[in-house]
């Protein structure tokens, strides 16, 4: 047990660490190479796991190498969605996130089949091969090349910006150098901070109900297979919920207010958890599983869409890396704490009530925070329009801070596209 505890203690930094590493790599090299390397790492990890002879080796191979590879897959995939799509980005996000429940529900019986046919060693090897398909996904991620030949007015400004900027490379501080790879200035971003804090609170109570659903059902006297079926129901509903919610989020009505939509989705999930203790028999538990799947799916599908909406496609990769690092703590702490609560009180319903309360609290926090954020942004936008109208379109003055340039650049973007002007990418 001591050995296991030691392994775990050494393991946790490696689950948390890869997030920013892959952000840095994506910022430098783009999505495609990182995903392909990630796929190769996953495959390597699983195949070497099949040759491992003890628990430590298993942790090293499956935990570390595979984990690194999976982190290398997640970040760039999300980033590239933001780079490819703008008008239909919520739908794209919803569809991209829909992959999880599909594989969750199909891999369970498939794993059983593999295990019965090939044993665990062969299963690891074959799963490693399947993970190699991530490379195929990576190959599809064509890099987005901006055309250097188009000389639009914006570009003129950019050229001048570049030349003026390049004239003073020596004056880059260490902080700015770090920011080049991983944008820590995001921590000054108001929207980002609201998102991060809300999510940290939410994730404390988000995953525990999923993990404890089957034990809760068994505790109520339901047999093993029906209890496992509950999870399948949830995954199945989740599978369809994600793209549909993505579609809803893309609609003209919702998209400008997508942060509110996210808060409401979180609140819906929280209320589901609060009502769960009312479910006494199997049918009501199935109903709960359906609604939970709906809530879980809607939250997951707009989870990263809202982040993209807040920080913009450019800073998204760094944002995702930082968000993953910070969110690791509640995700890791949540289920054990919930388990402790169940052990102390002896009943599952208190755990569900606690998780529901935490999630509802997170949703309220997000709602209020985003309401304030929207209002402040509207105010700033009005100010920018006024200042822009009274000035030239030249965005960059060396004396000005980069922040102001962003806003004027942003207004140009808004005017240049057909986007609903209340849609904004906020950079502070």
């Amino acid at each position, binding site marked *: 047990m001591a050995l296991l505890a030691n392994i775990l203690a050494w393991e946790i930094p490696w689950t948390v660490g890869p997030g920013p590493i892959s952000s840095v790599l994506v910022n430098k090299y783009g999505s495609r190479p990182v995903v392909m390397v990630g796929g190769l790492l996953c495959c390597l990890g699983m195949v070497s796991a099949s040759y491992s002879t003890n628990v430590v080796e298993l942790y090293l191979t499956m935990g570390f190498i595979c984990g690194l590879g999976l982190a290398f897959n997640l970040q760039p995939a999300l980033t590239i969605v933001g780079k490819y799509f703008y008008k239909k980005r919520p739908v794209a996000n919803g569809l991209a996130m829909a992959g999880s429940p599909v594989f969750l529900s199909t891999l369970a019986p498939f794993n059983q089949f593999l295990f019965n046919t090939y044993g665990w060693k062969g299963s690891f090897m*074959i799963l490693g091969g399947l993970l190699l398909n991530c490379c*195929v996904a990576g*190959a599809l991620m064509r890099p987005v090349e901006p*055309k250097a030949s188009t000389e639009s007015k914006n570009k003129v400004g950019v050229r001048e910006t570049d030349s003026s900027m390049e004239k003073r490379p020596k004056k880059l501080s260490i902080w700015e150098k770090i920011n080049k790879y991983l944008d820590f200035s995001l921590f000054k971003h108001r929207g980002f901070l609201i998102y991060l804090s809300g999510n940290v609170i939410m994730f404390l109570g988000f995953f525990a109900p999923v993990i404890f659903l089957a034990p809760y059902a068994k505790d109520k006297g339901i047999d093993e297979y029906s209890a496992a079926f509950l999870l399948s129901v949830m995954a199945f509903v989740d599978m369809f919920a994600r793209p549909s919610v993505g579609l809803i989020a893309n609609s003209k009505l919702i998209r400008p207010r997508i942060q509110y939509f996210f808060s409401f989705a979180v609140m819906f999930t929280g209320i589901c958890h609060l009502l769960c203790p009312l479910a006494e028999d199997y049918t009501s538990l199935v109903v709960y599983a359906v609604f939970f799947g709906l809530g879980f799916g809607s939250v997951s599908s707009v989870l990263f869409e809202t982040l993209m909406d807040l920080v913009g496609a450019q800073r998204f990769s760094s944002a995702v890396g930082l968000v993953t690092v910070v969110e690791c703590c509640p995700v890791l702490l949540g289920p054990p704490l919930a388990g402790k609560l169940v052990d102390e009180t002896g009943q599952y319903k208190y755990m569900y009530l606690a998780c529901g309360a935490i999630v509802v609290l997170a949703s309220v926090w997000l709602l209020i925070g985003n309401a304030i954020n929207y209002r402040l942004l509207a105010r700033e936008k009005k100010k920018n329009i006024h200042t822009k109208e009274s000035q030239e379109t030249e965005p960059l003055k060396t004396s000005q801070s980069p922040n102001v340039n962003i806003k004027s650049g942003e207004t140009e*973007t808004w005017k240049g596209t057909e986007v609903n002007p209340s849609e904004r990418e906020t950079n502070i």
Partner: protein
Amino acid sequence: MRALQGLPGPRAPSLPLLLLCFLAAVRRSVEHGLSTAAPFTSLPVQEEITMTKYSNLSLESHNISVTAAPFTSLPVQEEITTTKYSNLSLESHNISMTEHSNMTVEKNITLERPSNVELTCQFTTSGDLNSVNVTWKKGDTLLEDNYLVNATGSILYTQYRVTVIDSKQMGSYSCFFGEKKQQKGTFNLKVPEINGKNKPLITYVGDSVVLMCKCQDCLPLNWTWYSVNGSVQVPIGVPVNDKYVISGKHANETSLKIMQLSEDDQGTYWCHAIFELGESEGHVELVVLSYLVPLKAFGAIVAEVVLLVTIILLFEMYTQKKKKPSDDGKEFEQGEELKLDDSNGIENSGPRHRKNESVGQ
């Protein structure tokens, strides 16, 4: 082995006493028989008065009765030695039947250690109880003696007692009610079951594997392992070698560790648990695969991946070559928006040199 062979025991029969015992042996009805731990009908009257507990078997009377009565289970020698069984546990089992029950009622009894067993059948009928014929059988053999019949109200009770000491007393004991339309109740006395594994264990050449057998709440005297060669069970570990290691952490489980597996080791392995009352066995199936088996599947998947990646990249190069001649900067509208985004990105992240990054992608 305490079988029905006899030891010459002390006998002091006197004729009147013998006759008395004979009568007692023939008699079937007992008032005390069921409620107290009363002895067999075969015991003479004195026994029934003096003995209140089965554990206080006295020797003398048993001697007499046995010579006359045809016991199927306990001869006199057994009776003497039954004082040894005073510390055996008593197990009681009941079956209830009515005249209308269609199915044969069965009850499975798991016995591990020698014990005294009391089997009771209850028969409820509306008719005349005295006219119902009661018989007991072990397997197909009719049991003549050693059982009591009692009628209370509308329920007919019959009780059979047996001291189980070895495997010969194990088996199926059935009580029968009636002549023409017989109602049957069966007690199956068995040794505890051993659980091996239902699904085959899959291993690879060169690995080592541990096969386990265990039973729930039992303490076997000994465990042995057998492998099957054709249809013959060959014991394992008889010439002790490095390949097989038999061990067990607790008394109720055993494990067989096989090292350096080869494809010849494939097959079914049987574990036998030896009890005082018999043997019980479980089985585990072992499958040994060579590494080539999953490797083929893996290779197929890798080939598919390489093929797909190559196709995608080739297609991309092909379309890019097509596009390069038409250099009018019209990729796709989203790209334009992204370009504008990119330029904004450059503006807002001057020190980060975003443009280099986007070109590099």
